[in-house]
């Protein structure tokens, strides 16, 4: 098995004034023919930089290769001139990016975009190109290739767009495929399909794949070799089974430890508790706007007769993919949106019709923790103001608010002096703690966590989940935990409710559902979870 790609001592420098001097330093990676190498690490590890460096697509003037070699089938890519390099791109090596939504030209049909690859690499005959495009679309298991080729990107789903991107990368049957987080922006069920596709392509064409991801589960499923990166350095490398099952480096070990596993919850009593929140046959639909006066108006049913109950001190998970309605339900519970039908009761009292002063009085009792630590804090306000602003508005005296703030900052593991600083001075994980502090300072009974850990690195995610568990224990909080990740839900939820297309299809404890999923969609969701074989090998599923 000869080596397809050899990266030897690659160094890429960062511009002056960055947190470190190199994006990647002395990185050595080998991609053998017919194998998949998984490049894994947290954000800032330099994995993407490395991938871009191989394609020589680094942004000019910002990132520079300052040392090392990149050898593809015996040819040093760094020594080639621009024209020669351009010739290799697409024909000998292909790349797939992360965001299928924005990676396609919005004003060209998808067929034309695949056709373009063939055209620029010398396939003159229009008919030959057309045939190839149809064949590729069929290879990617896309429906109705003949009509699909005339569609525009906005008419396709995320998964379909990613298949188009893969088709473009594979059009000329390259020997190397570089995939930079290709499934991160996709739903877990779509992800499973795309991963299967990539594997199938690899087996059929014997290509080498360099697969960049932050998800260990994905790596476990598809990689033959694994390279672990941290802050621009390779920390550990080796065959997948070795690195994943017997990690040597302490960083790798810590990282693997932090990966959430499906675990059974330990909270003892299953005795019925007084419900703190009751969602009763709630319906909500959105009007999709046409433009202008005669625009056609459609209705999307976002929530369809949804019912759920959260008991005092209980944490219920709302698990679903995009479009399932989980975010909408969260917003309705928070009274950021009005429901069309049904009832919402909090502590026995109906809240779905509250307005004005009554609504304002309700606010402190239900608080939210948001997904994006970077967008959930007003960049112009100092932390102290962010935390105390709402408390003071709800009638608490300033010095009492100050006291509460100090207490709550300590509770989330931050020093009270943080109050004087601004959000941009903190890391993502710390900002999320500030967001949690902001919610807690109001002394709520119920917290709605909307994908609260989804945007965090796996190690930070572990810490924040730990924090949430700790805090809810101490304060006796109830929680509605919205997530797309079953494993994350199992880490913190007593029960979960699976949502699909606006309906709750199944509820129960994670254990019960995992053992015997009743609804076909739930089964699909469980089957699609990446890295299950690896998980079972390491038998961490505690009894």
């Amino acid at each position, binding site marked *: 098995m000869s080596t397809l790609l050899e990266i030897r001592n690659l160094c890429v420098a960062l511009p002056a004034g960055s947190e470190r001097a190199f994006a990647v330093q002395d990185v050595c990676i080998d991609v053998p023919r017919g194998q998949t190498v998984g490049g894994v690490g947290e954000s800032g590890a330099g994995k993407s930089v490395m991938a871009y460096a191989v394609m020589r697509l680094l942004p000019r003037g910002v990132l520079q290769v300052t040392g090392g070699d990149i050898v593809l089938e015996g040819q040093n890519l760094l020594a080639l001139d621009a024209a020669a390099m351009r*010739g290799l791109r697409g*024909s000998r090596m292909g790349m797939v*990016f992360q965001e299928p939504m924005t990676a*396609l030209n*919005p*004003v*060209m049909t998808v067929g034309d975009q695949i056709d373009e690859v063939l055209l620029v690499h010398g396939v003159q005959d229009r008919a030959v190109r057309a045939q190839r495009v149809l064949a590729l679309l069929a290879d990617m298991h896309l429906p109705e290739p003949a009509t699909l080729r005339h569609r*525009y990107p906005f008419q396709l789903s995320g998964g379909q767009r990613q298949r188009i991107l893969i088709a473009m990368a594979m059009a000329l049957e390259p020997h190397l495929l570089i995939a930079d987080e290709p499934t991160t922006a996709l739903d877990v069920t779509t992800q499973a399909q795309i991963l299967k596709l990539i594997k199938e392509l690899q087996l059929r064409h014997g290509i080498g794949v360099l697969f960049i991801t932050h998800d260990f589960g994905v790596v476990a499923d598809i990689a033959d070799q694994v390279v672990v990166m941290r802050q621009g350095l390779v920390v550990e490398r080796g065959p997948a089974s070795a690195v994943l099952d017997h990690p040597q480096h302490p960083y790798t070990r810590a990282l693997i430890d932090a990966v959430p596993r499906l675990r059974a919850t330990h909270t003892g009593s299953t005795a019925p508790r007084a419900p703190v929140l009751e969602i009763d046959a709630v319906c909500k639909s959105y009007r999709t706007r*046409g433009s202008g006066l*005669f625009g056609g108006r459609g209705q999307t049913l976002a929530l369809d007769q949804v019912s759920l109950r959260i008991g005092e001190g209980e944490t219920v998970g709302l698990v679903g993919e995009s479009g399932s309605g989980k975010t909408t339900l969260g917003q309705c519970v928070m009274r950021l949106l009005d429901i069309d039908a049904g009832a919402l009761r909090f502590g026995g009292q109906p809240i779905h019709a509250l307005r004005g002063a009554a609504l304002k009085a309700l606010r402190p009792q239900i608080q939210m923790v948001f997904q994006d630590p970077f967008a959930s804090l007003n960049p112009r306000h100092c932390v102290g103001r962010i935390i105390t602003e709402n408390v003071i508005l709800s009638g608490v005296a300033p010095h009492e608010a100050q006291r509460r703030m100090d207490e709550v900052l300590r509770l989330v593991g931050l020093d009270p002096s943080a109050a004087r600083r601004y959000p941009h001075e903190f890391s993502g994980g710390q900002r999320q703690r500030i967001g949690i502090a902001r919610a807690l300072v109001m002394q709520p009974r119920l917290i709605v966590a909307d994908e609260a850990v989804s945007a965090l690195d796996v190690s930070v995610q572990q810490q924040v989940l730990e924090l949430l568990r700790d805090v809810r224990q101490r304060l006796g909080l109830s929680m509605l935990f919205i997530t797309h990740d079953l494993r994350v839900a199992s880490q913190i939820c007593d029960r979960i409710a699976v949502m699909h297309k606006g309906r709750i299809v199944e509820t129960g404890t994670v254990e019960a559902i995992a053992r015997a999923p009743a609804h076909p969609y739930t089964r699909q969701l469980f089957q699609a979870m990446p890295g299950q074989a690896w998980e079972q090998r390491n038998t961490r599923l505690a009894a």
Partner: protein
Amino acid sequence: MERLLFFARRCLKALLVILCVIAINFALIRAAPGDPATILAGEAGAVDAGFVERIRKDYGLDQPLPVQFVAYLQQLATFNFGTSYRENRPVQEIIFEKLPATLLLTLSAFVFSVVVGVGLGMAAARRAGTWVDATITAASLVFFAMPLFWFGLLAIVLFSVKLGWLPSYGMSTVGADLKGWQAWLDVGHHLLLPAVTLGLFYVAVYTRVTRAAAIEVMDQDFVKTARAKGVPERRIWRHHILRNALLPVITFVSLQAGHILGGSVLVETVFAWPGIGRLAFDALFQRDYNLLLAVFFVSSVMVVLFNLVADLLYSIADPRIELQT
């Protein structure tokens, strides 16, 4: 089918704009200090009591306001602008006589500014950060800052007087009885200076907008994808960047249409170009508000028509518009 519906919606919007213009005209006359009839008669006509009375009757100025408005609506809808006292003929005739000259001037200036402006903007974006970009940006800032009429006057001094290359006023040489293509050449000769003067300001505007739009598009993911496919730079610029950058540029250009007509008032005045802009200036001078309002109305209609065409063009260029309704 969808395109037809789209077009119908745009037409409705256009009619709404024209209705508003009519309403504005109506309101302005009534809001001005003094007797509306005298105002509509203009400085010249106001002295003739009979003329003023005829106006009062024609516009129904004694009637209640809603009736007046409906009458006014009907009149403007048929382009009936009343009679000019000074020239003793319908204003409609005067305007439509002068309209072609303005169309020639503004369309030439427009084409010139779009072609040169978009071209320079793309060139600047492509070489962003280099001296080429800096020069183009600086030049556009300079032309953007120049008052049109000042530049026109200086151009006359330089090109007509000092250098004698180009004529300084009018649309054709007075007295020379030219026919056929010689006549056209003469007009072209006269057109050059005014069209370039009017156009240069907008060259600056379009350069800036195009450059900004192109730079925005340059950073997008699909450009990265195109590079990863091995598409050569030239093709990337033409098919990927330009095609997407043109969308906001088309929107912007259609919004600017009204401006060019305003600019033509200044340029036609400076160069004595016999169009409706010049007519507007004369109307100002002679306090002939009726004529002024008529020019305003006709200009608005032209702008609205132009916007319709631009909207149609945009819907062809951007597939998301047509097919998303």
